[in-house]
């Protein structure tokens, strides 16, 4: 067994991954949202699809995150949330989130983003009321956490595209599935 490696810092982690110019990401996502609005017509359906896309992305990103970050098993949901905010957001988006507003049970908290590369150059027209533009991010969190046995509900509380002063997503841990060994074949 090689000696355990210390977890990387957020900055070191971001520096260690392949990076691309953020405009490509932001404009690509924007073009996808716009095309979905045209094709699906219902804003609710677009929100659902963005969340689904995020979920699928999250289930893959979590592997990359665990492989590159050297993070060891988190003791509880609180520690998990801190790791996501400080390292997860940083590794992929280059920004960090703040974890706040914990409930008494320690099962729900908020991620607050003041800087969000997903929305650079974005303005929502009045016809897009109800669009949850950043749903891909909440989907990613939900998908990634589900892969490490935590079922969550993630909702947006504040959205700068709607005039709020920051982005805030609420993450509620609904079920922590104990990991079973050995895995069943049909799982």
């Amino acid at each position: 067994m090689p000696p355990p490696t210390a977890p990387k810092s957020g900055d070191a982690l971001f520096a260690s991954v392949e990076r691309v110019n953020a405009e490509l990401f932001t404009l690509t996502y924007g073009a996808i949202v716009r095309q979905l609005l045209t094709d699906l017509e219902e804003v609710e359906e677009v929100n659902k699809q963005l969340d689904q896309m995020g979920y699928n992305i999250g289930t893959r990103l979590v592997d990359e995150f665990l492989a590159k970050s050297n993070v060891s098993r988190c003791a509880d949901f609180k520690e998990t949330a801190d790791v996501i905010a400080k390292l997860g957001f940083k590794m992929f988006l280059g920004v960090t989130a703040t974890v706040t507003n914990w409930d008494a049970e320690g099962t729900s908290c908020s991620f607050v983003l003041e800087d969000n590369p997903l929305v650079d150059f974005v303005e929502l027209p009045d016809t897009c009321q109800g669009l949850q533009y950043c749903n891909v991010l909440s989907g990613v969190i939900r998908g990634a956490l589900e892969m490490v046995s935590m079922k969550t509900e993630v909702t947006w509380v504040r959205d700068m595209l709607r005039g709020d002063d920051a982005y805030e997503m609420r993450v509620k841990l609904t079920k922590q599935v104990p990991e079973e060994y050995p895995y069943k074949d049909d799982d």
Partner: protein
Amino acid sequence: MGREVAESCVDGVVMEMVAAYCGRFYASKPELAARRIEAIGFQVGHQLTERYTMERPRFSDHLEAIKFICKDFWSELFKKQIDNLKTNHRGTFVLQDNHFRWLTRVSIDPSVESIDANENDSTSLGDSAAQTTSMLLYFPCGIIRGALTNLGIACSVTADMSNLPACSFVVRIKT
């Protein structure tokens, strides 16, 4: 250097967009899915060129504009230039990237992969992989067409991936 994000973010949204259009929305109508994916690329290319050409004089001819796509534009997107440019001097240009990033990085949709693995059928794996890849390539084709259209050049763009991981984009200028 401007702002950056992890490459996985771009790979993730592009792959999911392709999977959504080919699998969930237009599963039985691949030509419609292809048109939508191309349209999304078109918009991205159009907007990116808008930003990258802001402080630059107009291009004097088609070749100048194509060279801009091969050098500056490609470098912004993929951190490398197009490796080889050919033309018949009659409005057709072939842009070859010997190691096209999106073909080397992006993996096949895992659900497709696992179905095929269960069937243990290498032919169908090859087929579906090729299908996913060719759908994915409508996106960069759209980007190139969007970029050139913004530079005042109406054209069609197709991709040839017969020499993976090299990929050629064939630009035919409309006269």
